[in-house]
């Protein structure tokens, strides 16, 4: 069922897994200004972020997850990093930054660590939406995947949020990979990842 070599977590991961920071306590009266929920229990992980924002700064936050050790540890680390940070900067945090601070994660566990920042961004987006500032940071941290057509990971993410589930549907929505096709491998990985996070 599981392989021992997948368990080589760093001491920092173990510490954040054992004593996660800023976990939502049901008994605590935490009044959030916005929340973001991503992932799906059926896929094995789900993440909720609750944030308080004053003057575009995250003053406090809580989170909950149904997830594995990597998901718990990376979200705990993320929550420490973004507390007191401006929302624009927090919005740009990448899973790789968190993995680095954790002293690395096993290769096959990286995908487990991407939910935290997605949930955080969803919470920030929801906060912006409520203030008529929708999409203010969108595209800032986008990475070009299909260089022929200038399609970014954000475009793929948006297509999946809008309902694309298969490669054909993604092409229908974005025209990705219809020129040289060189991006297909990476684009399909992202599609798989986003369907996992945003799909139902």
């Amino acid at each position, binding site marked *: 069922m599981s392989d021992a070599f997948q368990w080589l977590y760093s001491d920092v991961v173990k510490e954040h897994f054992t004593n996660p920071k800023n976990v939502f306590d049901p008994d605590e009266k935490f009044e959030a200004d916005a929340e973001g929920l991503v992932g799906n229990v059926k896929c094995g992980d789900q993440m909720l972020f609750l944030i308080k924002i004053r003057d575009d700064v995250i003053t406090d936050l809580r989170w909950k*997850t149904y997830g594995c050790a990597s998901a718990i540890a990376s979200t705990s680390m993320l929550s420490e990093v973004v507390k007191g940070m401006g929302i624009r900067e927090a919005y740009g945090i990448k899973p790789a930054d968190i993995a680095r601070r954790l002293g690395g994660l096993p290769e096959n566990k990286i995908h487990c660590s991407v939910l935290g920042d997605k949930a955080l961004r969803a919470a920030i987006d929801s906060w912006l939406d409520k203030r008529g500032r929708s999409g203010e940071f969108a595209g800032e941290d986008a990475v070009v995947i299909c260089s022929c057509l200038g399609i970014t990971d954000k475009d793929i993410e948006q297509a999946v949020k809008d309902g694309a589930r298969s490669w054909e549907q993604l092409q229908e929505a974005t025209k990705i990979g219809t020129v040289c096709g060189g991006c297909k491998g990476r684009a399909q990985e992202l599609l798989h990842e986003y369907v996992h996070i945003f799909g139902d």
Partner: protein
Amino acid sequence: MQQRFVYMDYNATTPLRPEVKELMVRDLEVYANASSMHEAGRRARAGIEAARASVAALIGARDPQELYFTSGGSESNNTVFGTMYELGRGRAPSVGRYRAEGRRKVITTAIEHPCVMNAARRLADEGFPVVFLPVDGQGRVDLARLEAELDPSRSEGGPTLLVSVMAANNEIGTVEEIARIALMAKAAGALVHTDATQAVGKIPVDVHAWGVDYLTLSCHKIYGPKGVGALYARSGAPLEPLVRGGHQEQGVRAGTYNNLGILGFGLAAELARRDLPEFSARLRALRERLREGIVARIPQVRVNGHPTEVLPNTLNASFPGAEGESILLSLDMEGIEVSTGSACASGSLEPSHVLMATGVGPELAHGSIRFSLGRDTTEEEVEYVLDKLPPIIARLRRMSTVSAEIRSA
């Protein structure tokens, strides 16, 4: 504080029994090729033949020559499926007598070990009609469906060549009705194989009572060394070698004998046969204690598998709201070694195919833990697990998105 070590993953593998270890250390210097004609070779060969008789006795085979030593369960299973590949293509087998007469259909189950699943998928890729029988909520094979699949007038794929059903499941421990299945398969003229890797040494296994043509067993699951196993093939049953070469194992499995492994296998088999009634009763009591304790101390637990027709050492339970890998790692930090059906522990995004086949749904499969007990498990260890597990589940559930309703301002 002294770190505890409580091993509850005996279905994954078992430690060497002290007696087996002692024998293997003693015989470490026996190097003669058991196929050599000289005195040293003949002595080595005699040890192998004695081991073969012990393994035959463990599964009720009357003639030790019906046992072929292999590198383990995966090889034994692949040998059977490789044989079906040749038969289904209309070839005469290298060993035994058999005419497939157009039979190509292979029936197995949705809960087999990956080595059977993948060997069966390979046959499907080669154009063989392959059926993976569904199981019920407790992991038992749907016999009505088997009957229909065996009847060419009620199903596709023509007459059946092979029915392969595992004797007991490695993940949930459910014991299948092999004697009934074999009877039905025989009536339809099919060959019958059972992967008894998890059953052997835990429940009585008798190839004649079950009526199977082939049976797979592995040594490292019965407190013997890794890298050795056996395939039982009824005298006259068709066989095609997977490993070609010399004349070892009646031409069915080439390669210089693994003397040491086979000697260890022989002793492990002899002791497993001797200890079975006592071992099985003791393990069943420990499993019951663990099951009762978990159900009593943790709310909302689902025990997976069959309530009574289950291996005496295997307990699989799901803890909704808590994810399996997190449970496993938390137990690991307390020195408790178990396994999980969660996708997070498998490197894929798919949870256990066995639990999914029983219909428990992905959330329960992701939150499943298998406790498999063994010879060295004590009552005190079971109590230790019962002390450590409830707070772990409570902690993970408390931080879970699944368990509590959350409202933001």
